[in-house]
């Protein structure tokens, strides 16, 4: 189950990062970055 959820988190992280790079407005980019932080650290099994 943990592997599956890490996969889901990684997928949401990838979609978030994709949005960050295609988004035109820096404010929305920054919002995406805030969401990416916990996802990234969880996927890397750091936190």
């Amino acid at each position, binding site marked *: *189950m943990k592997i599956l959820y890490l996969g889901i988190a990684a997928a949401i992280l990838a979609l978030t990062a994709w949005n960050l790079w295609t988004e035109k407005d820096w404010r929305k980019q920054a919002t995406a970055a*805030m969401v990416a932080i916990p996802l990234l650290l969880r996927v890397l099994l750091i936190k």
Partner: protein
Amino acid sequence: MPFEFTLFLAMVGVFAVCAFAVKLPVSLSMLAAALTGLLVSGNGLGIRHLVEGTFGYVDTILVIATAMIFMRAVQESGALDALNVVIIKRFRTVPALLLPMLMLVAMFPGMITGSSSASVLTAGAVVAPVLMILGLPAAEAGAFIALAGILGMIAPPVNIPAMIIGGGIDMPFVGFEVPLLLLTMPLAVIFSLTIGLKHVKKLSWEALAPKLDTETYERYGIRLFAPILVVAALMVLGKVVPKYFGMGLPVVFLIGAALALFVGKRFNPLLAAKSAVADALPVLGILAGVGMFIQVMTLTGVRGFVVVSALSVPPIMLYAAIAITIPLFGAVSSFGASSVLGVPFLLALLGKNQIVTAAALSLIASLGDFMPPTALSAIFAAQVVGVEKYSRVLRHLVIPSIVILAWALVFIAYSKQIAAMY
């Protein structure tokens, strides 16, 4: 004046300036407020605290993101359009039944995700045009789906504010279904009728049909609804036999989304998922921001200040304090209000039925989604119905909000009697 009060004012002030004057999104305004709290309290940049705070919602972020992907998939497959066709065709002659049905459809995503924004942006976006076809002015249609958003958020099976409030006193989110249904469903019926009934024109099917997407349903039929039914079934099974179906909502939603690929109109799953996440990002960002904000409040003692101040209110004033402070704080976020104020108020209401009281407090907390400047539910609703100024939508939400408050307070006052009823 305690230092924590000054700090609280500084944090709220920075938030207000960022959100109103600078017009930053709520997420970034929260981040700025949290940073202010860290700096003023002598904690430096406190990167560890900012990052750690977001982890309070990492599971919620996955639930909302996957729910939005599921809803987008269902929408793209044509199932939501078809659902409206079925509903209108069957119930158009009885608006007293049709309007509550539409309310329920609009509430559905909020019920399963616990997010009012998910409701408004998905099912709300489908129901709103139907309401306007039926004769509702845009602002009223916006108010209709905004109300559906917060009632859906509070209605079972998923109610995040109630989970947050219960979690604060080690109370499991178990046994909430009936009180939450009693709190939300009567209001859903009443609001759908009071807002809609006076505008709805009785129209012949021939007049309505061209404005609806009837083709999808004719082409794919009942199987369009398979993903919705499977998700509903998996959610029920997850509650009844958690041993075998306790896979959690994110997995359930992704199964439903995958199924939606095969039952209706074709769509590009990657692009749909990307745009679903894009729609979810403002809400997910707010969750991350609230996490940072609460971490800094706790770290600096502002949370203790707020909690002890709330508990210092004399008992006679307690209800007034609940009715005023929770929605006001909800302007920051309804989840934040649940955690920071919902828990201490529940503690102050010892002697009441805890489940009914927590459920009612969660309903009051949901009003935060109408509270400017964030007013998430109202802003998204205005966006959906194409109303430029969300205050036009908000105007129609004032009376319903007062009714919601009164209804919730009645539940708190008579919590024991209500609990004895079921």
